[in-house]
């Protein structure tokens, strides 16, 4: 069976045409707008690491919806996803494989304006949580409250869709929300709003999953390991550069995505520089326990019909220059 | 006798494709109360334009028009006006088209209803009340138009070639009806026709208009007494009138 349904042979993919200067043209699809999670990719592109490997990478921004299908079908050879997405994708048979954890630990958590005095999940009781409306999200919030000995039913969960956390807080519509430390938290600081922040990784091991991750599909790994190796070598180099030179890395990102807020990007980059590798022996390493723990939680809470084989969901084989 | 309509030095020039088209040139017409006045003249000379001006549908003319002693206002129409082209609403049945003026005046009461039914019978439209305009003949449309005009209940009627699509017999019936209305309802009628005999038979006075730009080239008072019957048509006086009008037209 081929990985992609429609008359498209996975290898060589028509998307892997050669560009004019003989480089192999491939597509990399983001999960969101470009941000500091993606810096390594941008560095690799700007600094010519991809070119050194003979690759010509188009970095593509999708719409509001996830781009996992594009990678699963090899429409794009590589992309950004997150552990939950890969788990769901694999549960439904899509052959996504995670190649690297961009950030070693989950850098998201619960943020709230200082004056709300929310410092532990127990304080969530009687407060309004603004979420984007996912059932998984809701279950996780309830879980952390329960873990902290609170009554999850006392948390009022309102869906704010795509509304911005800060705006929603400002107008008094919510009290706290799930935010990214390296993005929303820093944005709030920039805007002069003081926040309380409870990192998720401190609340539960289960929820310290990998987000985001770099993904490809099984076919590339099986039939095109050279390409994957080349690509990951450049990416790894990019992220290493970003760890060492956050300010210059931020410039690389801003060069290709100048629409972003410079102040935010620079600060965020400085924050993330130490978070990429964090306590891991090398950048991008993924642990089976992390994959398993969260997958099991999803299964126990009936979000997936059957456990998936996490061994197939990720690989560290293409890290550390493929050692 | 009161003067009902007084048209003084009426001139009108259209502008089409930036070129002026002089249509009316110093028209003077007087219509007295309960009089029947006809306009005749070559096709395209400007007869309908006079009516449209009276009805307030054309602005930009020069001259003076008074109706019942008052200058006409652009926004209101004091006439029962029947346009040359029969304009019926295609989405209304014949009956609904006819009673449109009653709807507009809010006079759709019971007593009216029987009056309208009788008129429909008299006009030979019985049985066609629920037909749509697309389903009746040209002459029937015209009769519906006349009836509608009558129901506008103004004491002055402007009729623009009302009998043009009617056969001889129906036309005679309609002429008789019109004369009856003239007497019974004390109406004043201004009438356009191409039928010279009709003009003479019906009118107290006939204005003959010249070709474009139209001016009055002859004013002929018809001195047959009222009520008239069709015998006048064969009187020598009638032939005299006819000759005079034909000569003026040629």
């Amino acid at each position, binding site marked *: 069976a081929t990985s992609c*349904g*429609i008359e498209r042979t996975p290898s060589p993919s028509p998307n892997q045409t050669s560009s004019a200067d003989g480089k192999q043209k491939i597509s990399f699809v983001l999960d969101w707008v470009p941000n500091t999670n993606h810096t390594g990719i941008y560095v690799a592109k700007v600094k010519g690491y991809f070119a050194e490997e003979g690759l010509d990478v188009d970095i593509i921004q999708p719409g509001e*919806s996830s781009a996992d299908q594009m990678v699963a079908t090899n429409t794009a050879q590589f992309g950004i996803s997150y552990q939950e997405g890969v788990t769901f994708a694999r549960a439904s048979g899509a052959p996504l494989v995670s190649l690297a954890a961009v950030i070693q630990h989950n850098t998201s958590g619960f943020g709230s304006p200082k004056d709300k005095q929310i410092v532990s999940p127990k304080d969530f009781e009687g407060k309004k949580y603004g979420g984007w409306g996912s059932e998984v999200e809701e279950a996780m919030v309830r879980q952390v409250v329960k873990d902290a000995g609170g009554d999850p039913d006392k948390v009022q969960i309102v869906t*704010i*869709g795509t*509304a911005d956390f800060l705006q929603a807080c400002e*107008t008094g519509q919510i009290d706290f929300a799930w935010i990214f430390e390296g993005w929303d938290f820093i944005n709030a600081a920039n805007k002069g709003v003081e926040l309380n922040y409870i990192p998720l990784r401190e609340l539960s091991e289960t929820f310290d999953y990998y987000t985001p991750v770099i993904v490809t599909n099984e076919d590339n790994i099986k039939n095109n390991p050279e390409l994957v190796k080349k690509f990951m070598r450049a990416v790894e180099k990019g992220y290493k550069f970003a760890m060492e030179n956050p300010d210059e890395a931020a410039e690389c990102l801003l060069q290709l995505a100048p629409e972003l807020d410079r102040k935010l990007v620079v600060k965020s980059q400085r924050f993330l520089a130490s978070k990429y590798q964090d306590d891991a022996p090398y950048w991008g390493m993924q642990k089976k326990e992390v994959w398993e723990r969260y997958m099991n939680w999803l299964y126990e809470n009936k979000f997936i019909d059957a456990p998936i084989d996490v061994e197939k969901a990720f690989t560290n084989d293409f890290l550390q220059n493929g050692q | 006798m009161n003067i009902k309509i007084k048209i003084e030095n009426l001139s009108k020039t259209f502008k089409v494709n930036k070129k002026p088209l002089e249509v009316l040139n110093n028209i003077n017409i007087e219509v007295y109360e309960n009089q029947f006045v006809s306009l005749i003249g070559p096709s395209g000379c400007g007869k309908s334009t006079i009516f449209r001006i009276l009805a307030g549908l054309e602005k930009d003319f020069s001259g003076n028009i008074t109706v019942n002693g008052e200058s006409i206002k652009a926004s209101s129409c004091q006439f029962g*006006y029947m346009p040359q082209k029969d304009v019926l609403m295609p989405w209304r049945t014949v009956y609904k088209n006819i009673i449109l003026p009653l709807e507009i005046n809010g006079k759709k009461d019971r007593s009216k209803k029987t009056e309208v039914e009788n008129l429909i019978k008299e006009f030979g439209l019985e049985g066609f009340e629920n037909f749509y305009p697309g389903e009746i003949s040209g002459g029937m449309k015209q009769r519906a138009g006349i009836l509608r005009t009558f129901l506008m209940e103004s004491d002055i009627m402007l009729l623009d070639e009302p009998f043009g699509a009617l056969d001889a017999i129906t036309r005679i019936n309609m002429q008789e009806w019109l004369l009856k209305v003239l007497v019974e309802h004390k109406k004043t009628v201004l009438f356009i026709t191409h039928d010279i005999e009709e003009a003479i038979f019906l009118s107290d006075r006939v204005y003959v208009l010249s070709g474009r730009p139209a001016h009055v080239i002859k004013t002929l008072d018809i001195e047959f007494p009222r009520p008239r019957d069709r015998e006048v048509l064969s009187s020598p006086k009638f032939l005299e009138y006819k000759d005079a009008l034909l000569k003026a037209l040629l």
Partner: protein
Amino acid sequence: MKKFRNIGNPIYSSIAVVVFIIVWEIFTRAKNIKEYILPAPSAILNEFITSGDLLLHHSMVTMTETVLGFILGLVLAILLSLLMSSFKLFRSIFYPFMFLSQTIPIIVVAPLITVWFGFGLVSKLIVCVLVVFFPIALNLTEGLSSYDKDLEELLMCMNASKLQIFMKLKLPSALVHFFSGLKIAAAYAVMGAIMSEWTGAESGLGIFLTRSMKSFRTAAMFADIAIISIFSILLFGLIKLIEKRCIKWNVKG
């Protein structure tokens, strides 16, 4: 020959739809297309069965929004068209804003709308109405100025009031345009409700849609879309029915 504005025989269209579904089923099976790329109709149908209750629950929410939004949008559209065709100044001033309102990408302003009007029905209705009112208002406004000028003159000679000219002439003449607008709006109405759920909602087909999308349940996503389509078609059918009653004379014209 004089048959008028007919979307055609519903038998043919039903057959066409059935054939389309069968071809789709065969295609996905023959080509062995993965469910997450394009689920087979049978898989979608299966989803209807397994997630039936859930879909029903979400549907009810969205239908309510749609119906409310459609009615409000319709009322607004009629009101605006009346004003615009009655008062030139109003038209001059308002027409550009009406047009501009459509050029604003709802997806980006949806969060702002939430910020301004809060969560809940108001924000949702604003989005719904924004989507629905425009095609109706534009078509109706155009329609209200395409009447027979001879008939207008006639009515003026009867000293009909503006309201009477409107009711007896302009409105009937605008009906074809009006219904064109309604049909376009019908196609967008359910989508409008879906978008309105972006302003924050707990249930509704839009929520189900994003949830199934994010959890890679493509068949469920298609089941959701199918419901959206079916409800749109129902709305369309209703409008068609009303149109048939209203513009009956035109068949005869």
